[in-house]
């Protein structure tokens, strides 16, 4: 019985020291390692995520390291700290700037706090950027007068776009154009009046040899000729009016000038001698008297009236 007791005590002491020493050597295995590592990649933006490690007290940090296929095959001990996540305090890391070749990359994360670190937690399956999910590109189709203009979203220098556009009528031919960069308005076509045009696009990534699905088609319509015709008619009528008004105003101006510069007195009708039977009063002797009698002063005239 004594021997058994000694054995048990020995085992207990052994395991106690094992874990105590183990936990303090090189600062490892005290902190829990992050779990559930995964990479989500959309449109060549790669995000490494993990379950956060919840610990009481001070903030917890994480360190992210990667190695490309070259390192894993030829220098397997070499791991490179992530450019933006060594350290980081979130539970995700944008590794886009670290994954720079189309080869499989190994990724690992560990918890750090002060001088303590956890064991490394490694991504189960290496990540290759050719597995990124490519979404159909967002685009804005507008008309600038008769010009069909397209602006695609800017997805960075690795993206090109194949744009397909057509006139919306039965049997219309499709046209294709490669747009090298998004974020800049591009002229596609000069449209015919009264017609509708549709556009769709897909994203191409040469470095991984893949493309997205086509976006939903967007259409624009150009107004028919009726409006311009009405404008033309109005303009023509206006022109005719102006054409008629000009000689009229010239004639009127001429008349005004004549009256102001060289006025001509015109005899009123009552003083005109005509060949009619109506005779003027001839101022002979007897008529002079009559004429004289006729001449009254204004006061007398006024009296006569009232």
């Amino acid at each position: 019985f004594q021997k058994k007791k000694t054995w048990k005590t020995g085992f207990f002491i052994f395991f106690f020291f094992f874990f105590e020493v183990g936990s303090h050597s090189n600062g490892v295995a005290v902190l829990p390692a992050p779990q559930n590592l995964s990479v989500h990649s959309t449109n060549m933006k790669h995000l490494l995520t993990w379950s956060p490690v919840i610990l009481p007290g001070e903030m917890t940090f994480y360190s992210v390291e990667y190695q490309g296929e070259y390192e894993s095959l030829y220098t397997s001990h070499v791991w490179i700290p992530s450019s933006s996540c060594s350290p980081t305090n979130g539970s995700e890391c944008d590794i886009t700037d670290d994954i720079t070749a189309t080869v499989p990359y190994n990724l690992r994360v560990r918890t750090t706090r002060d001088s303590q670190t956890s064991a490394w937690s490694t991504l189960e399956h290496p990540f290759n950027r050719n597995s990124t999910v490519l979404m159909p590109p967002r685009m804005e189709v507008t008309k600038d007068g008769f010009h069909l203009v397209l602006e695609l979203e800017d997805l960075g220098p690795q993206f090109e776009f194949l744009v397909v556009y057509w006139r919306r009528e039965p049997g219309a031919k499709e046209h294709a154009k490669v747009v090298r960069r998004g974020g800049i308005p591009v002229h596609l076509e000069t449209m015919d009046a009264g017609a509708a045009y549709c556009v769709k696009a897909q994203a191409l990534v040469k470095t991984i040899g893949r493309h997205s699905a086509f976006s939903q088609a967007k259409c624009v319509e150009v107004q028919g000729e009726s409006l311009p015709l009405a404008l033309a008619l109005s303009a023509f009528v206006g022109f005719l009016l102006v054409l008629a008004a000009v000689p009229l105003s010239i004639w009127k101006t001429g008349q005004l000038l004549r009256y102001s510069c060289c006025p001509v007195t015109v005899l009123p009708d009552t003083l005109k001698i005509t060949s009619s039977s109506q005779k003027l009063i001839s101022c002979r002797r007897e008529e002079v008297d009559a004429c004289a009698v006729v001449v009254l002063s204004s006061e007398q005239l006024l009296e006569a009236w009232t």
Partner: protein
Amino acid sequence: MKAWCVSLWPPILMLILCSVHTNSLKRCLISVDMRFIEKSFQGIKRALQAKDTFQNVTVLSILESPKNIKPADVCCVTKHLLTFYRDRVFQDHQESSPQIVRKISSIANSFLYMQKTLHQCQEQRWCHCSQEATNATRTVHDNYDQLDVHSAALKSLGELDIFLAWIDKNHQETSAA
């Protein structure tokens, strides 16, 4: 007249075949982002070349004159030089600067991708290594061996712009960018 025409036919055919072959090589590395690799190198070029103490030696001397490598030898020389960098230069180089380590890793992994792409592209095609092509790559190794390992690796890294420009000229479309 007929005999004269017939005698001319094989060389013309060979010329056409060679031209087609060379042009098809140009598309093999079309998916490689050479601009990005060149940009990665430009970021560390000055730091690397500043440490190079053997200015009168050029490891990639064979690439400096366009006449040295025939179009038919381009495929073989490219494969051999990629292997040279993968197996000797990148592994022999000791680097402490994290920024340079990161850029060299980017270039090394891009070269690995280039090798795979070239291999797939050439699988069904002819990528024969002539004696001249073998001699040319032998020259590169001999130049490398003239120096001590660390200096040779550093110098070869500093000459990456020569190699990248040569790949650009021989493997990419002339209308690129």
